């Protein structure tokens, strides 16, 4: 039986359908989840998709972080369930303190939309195990508030413990400290990144299919677990 991967729709989510489609194309069973629900419907993993949940009011992700479904997501993540936050989803994970640090407005003060080169720094997470550390990939990046910041001690810990998962190549697009594009928690089950792997799963609509391993990684992890 295919693993069931939930994708949460918040008011203002944009990329929930692309994430559901990416799950389906990668061999998983996509499960739409609703922000106002207090159940995860028995899914095996959760994706928080990109978009502008709650209109980015207050701060990106600040209000979504307290949506009813997030109580369940936080409990499940703490119990080891794989959780992937993409763009706005990454911002939500930081606001929820499932990942350290925060995302602020791009230092270039403009919205950035480009095919972004990245280096995979860690294959030791549930969402990147099908990569090899050092792989260079191209993934769509599109955001206005993607500058990753954290205090010195947090950055030292992230670097020292191998929790930096993706780094920007060919120029830092938004002022992120240490060129950080994505990070993981200590356990490796929660991953957040600003680029959008769900847009890079079909040669028809993207310059690469480098997003596919994100989804196949978690599916292999879940099938090995059963």
């Amino acid at each position, binding site marked *: 039986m295919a693993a069931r991967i939930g994708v949460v729709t918040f008011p203002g989510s944009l990329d929930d359908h692309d994430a559901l489609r990416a799950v389906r194309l990668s061999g998983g069973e996509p499960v739409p989840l609703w922000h106002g629900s207090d159940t995860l419907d028995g899914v095996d993993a959760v994706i928080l998709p990109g978009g502008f949940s709650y209109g980015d009011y207050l701060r990106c992700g600040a209000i979504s972080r307290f949506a009813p479904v997030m109580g369940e997501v936080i409990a499940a993540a703490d119990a080891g369930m794989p959780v992937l936050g993409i763009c706005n989803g990454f911002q939500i994970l930081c*606001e929820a303190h499932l990942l350290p640090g925060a995302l602020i407005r791009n230092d270039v*003060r403009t919205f950035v939309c480009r095919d972004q080169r990245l280096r995979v720094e860690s294959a030791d997470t549930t969402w990147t195990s099908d990569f090899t550390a050092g792989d260079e990939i191209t993934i769509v990046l599109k955001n206005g508030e993607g500058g990753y910041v954290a205090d010195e001690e947090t950055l030292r810990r992230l670097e020292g413990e191998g929790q930096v998962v993706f780094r920007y190549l060919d120029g830092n697009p938004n002022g992120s400290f240490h060129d950080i594009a994505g990070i993981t928690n200590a356990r490796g089950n929660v991953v957040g990144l600003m680029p959008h792997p769900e847009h890079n799963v079909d040669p028809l609509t993207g310059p690469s299919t480098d997003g596919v391993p994100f989804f196949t990684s978690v599916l292999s992890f879940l099938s090995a677990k059963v």
Partner: protein
Amino acid sequence: MARVVVDVMPKPEILDPQGKAVTGALARLGFAGVSVRQGKRFELEVDGELTPERLAEVHRAAETLLANTVIESFVVHAEEPGTAPAQVVD
């Protein structure tokens, strides 16, 4: 009814692109030698008497939602007419 004001500012070490954009615009308008950092002001109308407990509750609300203390600091001011203004600094 009491009014409590929560001022939220980006921490000094955090880049403030909005403030930088405003600083640049002011310079172009001839307001030289001015550097701006941009924050947020929240005005909370609080029902009933503003007891120290209520003020502490507002402080908790600010810490929980209004500010992200990873990147922002905040100050809570009580503005109740006829009483000395209280202040809680974080």
